[in-house]
C-alpha cells in the first residue's frame, strides 16, 4: 500500500507554505521530513490527516485502503493529552480494543512505572511526549505520522523511544519530522522544500 503526495501546494494568507510537493510513502519505509521551522512539515502532515485541504494537488491512496481518509497513528506537534487523566487512561481511551492492562504494558517500555497512574498534567514534558508516542503506536494504522516526537527527550530516552517505535511499527510506513537525523539513519531523508519526484508507474 502506498500514499502518493502529488504536487501538493498550500498557502496561508497568500504566503506559500508548500509548493508542488511530491513524495511517495510506501510500506516498510520510514521518512524523515526536514526543513527549517515554518517550511510546511506540520502542514503536510495535517493535509495527510485530512485536517487541512491542499490548494492544489492530490493525496492518492494506492492499494487496499478501506476508508477515504487514512488511519494514522499520530503524534501531534503538541502533546494533546487529556490532562486530568492518567497515562494509562490516555492510551486506553483511543480504541475500544485496548484494555488498561495492554496500555500499561506498552507504556512501561518507555516510562517509569510510578508515572503511569498520575494525571498526565503532573508529568514532565518529556514523559508526556512519550505517552503521546505510545498512544500513537497503540492504534491499528495505515501509516504513522510523528510531528517532532522527541521534543524534550534526552539522548538516552530518545534512543529508547526510537527502538520502541521500530519494534512496534512492523511494516507500517513512518513519517517523522525533526531537526536532527541522529539515530534515524533508517529513514529516507526528505527535504520538505524539495520533495521527491514521483516515479512513473
Amino acid at each position, binding site marked *: 500500500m502506498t500514499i502518493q503526495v502529488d504536487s501538493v501546494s498550500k498557502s496561508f494568507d497568500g504566503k506559500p507554505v508548500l509548493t508542488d510537493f511530491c513524495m511517495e510513502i510506501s510500506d516498510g519505509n520510514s521518512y524523515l521530513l526536514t526543513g527549517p521551522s515554518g517550511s510546511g512539515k506540520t502542514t503536510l502532515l495535517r493535509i495527510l490527516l485530512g485536517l487541512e485541504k491542499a490548494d492544489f494537488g492530490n493525496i492518492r491512496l494506492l492499494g487496499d485502503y478501506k476508508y477515504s481518509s487514512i*488511519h*494514522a497513528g499520530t503524534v501531534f506537534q503538541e502533546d494533546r493529552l*487529556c*490532562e*486530568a487523566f492518567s497515562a494509562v487512561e490516555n492510551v486506553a481511551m*483511543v480504541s475500544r480494543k485496548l484494555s488498561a492492562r495492554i496500555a500499561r504494558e506498552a507504556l512501561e517500555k518507555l516510562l517509569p512505572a510510578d508515572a503511569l497512574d498520575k494525571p498526565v498534567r503532573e508529568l514532565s514534558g518529556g514523559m508526556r511526549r512519550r505517552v503521546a508516542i505510545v498512544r500513537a503506536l497503540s492504534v491499528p494504522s495505515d501509516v504513522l505520522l510523528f510531528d517532532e516526537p522527541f521534543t524534550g527527550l534526552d539522548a538516552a530516552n530518545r534512543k529508547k523511544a526510537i527502538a520502541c517505535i521500530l519494534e512496534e511499527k512492523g511494516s507500517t510506513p513512518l513519517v517523522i519530522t525533526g531537526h536532527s537525523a541522529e539515530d534515524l539513519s533508517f529513514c529516507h531523508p526528505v527535504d520538505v522544500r524539495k520533495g521527491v519526484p514521483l516515479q512513473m508507474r
Partner: protein
Amino acid sequence: MKSTPLKKALIILFWLGVWQLVSLLVHNNVMLVGPVETAESLVRLVRAADFWASVWYTFWRIGLGFASAACLGIVLAFFSAAHPILREFLSPFFAALKSVPVASFVILLLVWFGSKNLAFFTAFLVVLPILYGNTLEGLLAADRKLLEMADVFRIPFSAKLHYILLPGLSPFWRSAFSLALGMSWKAGVAAEVIGQPLHSVGNRLYQSKIYLETADLLAWTVVIILISYLVEKLFQKFLTCLPGGKTAKEERSGREEGGERA
C-alpha cells in the same frame, strides 16, 4: 484561611443572637419573631400531619420540573453545539425566556395550565435556559485540539464524552446546577404563592401571611432553605463523581496549562 467548625458555629450563633435581640427590641410578633419562636413553630409544623404532604406536593413538582428541564436543556445544548444553524434558531427563544420576568410567565402559566402543576412548569421554564446556556458555553469552550485528536484517532463518542467533553463541562455545570437549583425553588414557591394550589408550600406560606403567623412564615422559609440546601449538596456530590469533576480550583489550573500550549 480555613474556617474551623467551631469558628463557623460561633459566627452563626452570633447572628442568631442578633436576630433574637432585634426581635426583642421590635417586640411585635407580627412584624418579626425571633429564632426561638421560629424553631418552636417549626417543631409544631413538622409534627402536624399535613406538613410532609405539603412539602412532598411542592418538592416533587419542582424536582420533576427541574429534572426534565435539565435533561432537555443539556440535550438541546449538545445538538446546538454541533449545528450552528440550530443554535441561531434557538437563540431568540432562550433570550426571551431569560428576560421575561418570572412573575409574568407565572400568570400566563396559571391561565394556560391552572394552578395544580404551576410549580412544575415554573421550575421547568426557569431551569431550561440556565442549563442550556451553560452546557452550550461549556461545549463550545471544549479544547479544539483535543477534539481534533479524537477525530484523528477515531475515538468513539462515549470515550470523547468521558475524557474530553465532561471534564470541560463540569465547572460550567457546577455553577449552572447550583444557580438553577436555587432559582427553581425560589421561583416555584413564588409561583405557588401567586397561584395558590391547595396543600402546597406556597399556599401554606400565604396562609401564614393571612393569619399574621409570622413565626409560621419564617418556619416555612427555613424549611424551603433547608430543602434547597440539601438538594444542592447532593448535586455537588454527584458532580464531583463526574470524570475530571474535582474541585473548581484544580479544574482551573488544569485549563490554564492547556491554554498555554494552545
